[in-house]
């Protein structure tokens, strides 16, 4: 290995290490973490929006062919700005995706499992929810909307 090669290798390693440290900082320091293994919630059959406190909600979402069931069949819900929402997600049939555009909530809905993310909706506005995994002929028409007032 000549000098130039050695330098290139060390630079590459240093760069990757730097990126990785930032990632761990974002995950553990800033608490922007990935979904993990949920073992204590059974998959549910129907969507529900439950208010636990004025600004604390629990949202149980069932993705199915071809809409998001946010609350007993509703595809649109309304919550006040500043609410912290615990989002649970499952699927009633095939694999779906759920991306709340403009947020870090980006989850897969897989039958037989429950996915989870927590998000604080600070900014008022309309949050579009998109299914981003192919789920059959109606995939591009999956409805879902969260209105933050």
């Amino acid at each position, binding site marked *: 290995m000549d000098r130039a090669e050695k330098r*290139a290798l060390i630079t590459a390693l240093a760069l*990757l290490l730097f990126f*990785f440290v930032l990632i761990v900082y974002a995950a553990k320091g800033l608490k922007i973490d990935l979904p993990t293994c949920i073992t204590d919630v059974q998959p549910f059959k129907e969507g529900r929006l439950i208010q636990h406190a004025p600004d604390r909600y629990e949202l149980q979402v069932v993705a199915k062919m071809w809409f998001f069931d946010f609350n007993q069949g509703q595809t649109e819900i309304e919550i006040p700005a500043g609410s912290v929402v615990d989002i649970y997600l499952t699927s009633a049939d095939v*694999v779906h995706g759920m991306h709340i555009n403009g947020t870090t909530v980006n989850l897969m809905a897989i039958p*037989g499992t429950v996915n989870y993310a927590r998000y604080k909706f600070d900014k008022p506005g309309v949050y579009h929810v998109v299914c981003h995994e192919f789920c*059959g002929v109606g995939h591009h028409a999956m409805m879902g909307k969260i209105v933050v007032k």
Partner: protein
Amino acid sequence: MRVEGGIKFILLSEIVFPILLLIFGVYHGVMQVLYRAGVLKADSFLGIDYYQGLTLHGVINAIVFTTFFAVAFGNAISLYLLKKPLRPAVQWISWILMVGGTLMAAWAMFTKRATLLYTFYPPLIGHWTFYIGTVLLVVGSLLPFFFDWIPSAIAWKRENPDKKLPLAVFGVFVNHILWTIMIVPVAVEILFQLFPLSIGLVEDINPLLARTLFWFFGHPVVYFWLLPAYVMLYTMLPKIVSDKGKLYSDPAGRLAFILFLLFSLPVGLHHQFTEPGITNAWKLIHAIFTFFVALPSLITAFTVAASLEYSAKAEDPSVKNSRFYWWTRLPYLRLEGDKWLFSYFFAGLVLFFFGGITGIVNASYNLNLAVHNTAYVPGHFHTTVGGLVLLAFLGMSLYMVAKIRGTEVKFKGLAALAPYFWMQGMFMFSYAMMVGGALEGFPRRTNSGLTYLNPDSPLYRPEWVGYAQLSVVGGALLGIGFILFLIAFFGTLLAPKIRESVVEFPIADAYHDAPTPVLNNLKGWTVAAVLLAVLSYIPPLYDVTQRGVFHNSPAYNEKYPIPIKQLQQTEAQSKEVSLKEEK
């Protein structure tokens, strides 16, 4: 090395057959940008619907074309560098399995029996011929390695006990070892989960397990596409730049290949970052390994640049002492001899530079939340597999066809220009997809023209319109580039023969070389790679079968929100009712 008869037919058809399919694959790529932008607001066009076409686009371009090329290239490399004839029996069985399997799967896809996309995630389920066809293609692609190239390498080693395996053969071998290992999990998924479900042998399966097994295969497969291109970059590119060109370092090449062997496998969870049922500590560990696997690509970037510098300076000594000026001496658009091939590698490398950077974004654990399954992802991988890999494979296909047919490369000017059209088109396409995806959440795998980009739909998203339109312009340039290539390719294929049919490659010597006994121990590294892969997958497999999963899921097909079994029962019942009524 001369080739004739059956072997010549096999080598040629292993190149031509997938390129014929690729014509459809690329055609539908162009259709996709039109559908997505709403230029074409329809479910289907000419009898092929969007998702069916997308399935064909993914399977043909990323699985069939690449696998055929890897086998044809490996055959030719083994023949040329080990100087042992190929074994017709092995080659014919492999050919029949690969072509037969491909036709089976193609039948299922063209007849709308397997609209599953190339990831075929259950509980969506297709016709069994799709699954078995895929398995046959894969089995066929393994045979030459085990029954042809390895025996030839052993014989070669006996004759050349103190030489090391040529670097190109070494790279091809690492690639097929990797291919063999990664096939195991996806074969388990297909044979024990999907195939039994598709013929009704079992009623339900565990979809999360299926996904985990799929991605155990699905990440390393991208290196199976990439490594033949790397073999060309290391061993051939310097020779194309200059007859006096040299590879900067042979040991660096071997080190890169071994690192790929080790770290390509324990990384599949980076495709499942947003999935439930898997402990995120394991996702982080796979993220670390993914960063390790960026290392051999960074080594390659250095070595390729150094080889280009050495070769450009060897070609034109007047730039010998300049630090940057040698860049102007590369044959960007030249038609003498084999220099036209440089365009393919150069355009590919430029795209791959961005592919590498954007890949690190994907791999970055929580950053993945911003891009997962958005259009960013296809934006990224069209600069890798649709960039360097495709261009290197197309260029080398044209080169090999000219040699094997014994013709000149026809329409060389078009052949040399095609990659630049492709590169420019891909820049626009990928930029649009990546920015629209990452910043605005434009999803992938979506016929968005019907809803999101349709002003009459309640789902209309005006903020995506500009990105979709830019991707149409990119798609058009890509289509033009591909047509230019096809003109040169078929012109060459059908040109009159003027030379002997040969298999030949421009192989460069190494500038730095040294014995590398540790790196050359392929058996040892293979064992290490298998161990690392198994260890890194035991805990996630435990999660997805024991801890994080509650019940199993029946099969659906893409049209009905009712499980297939129930659907068949209701169909049978309604038939009975109507029969009774008739009576």
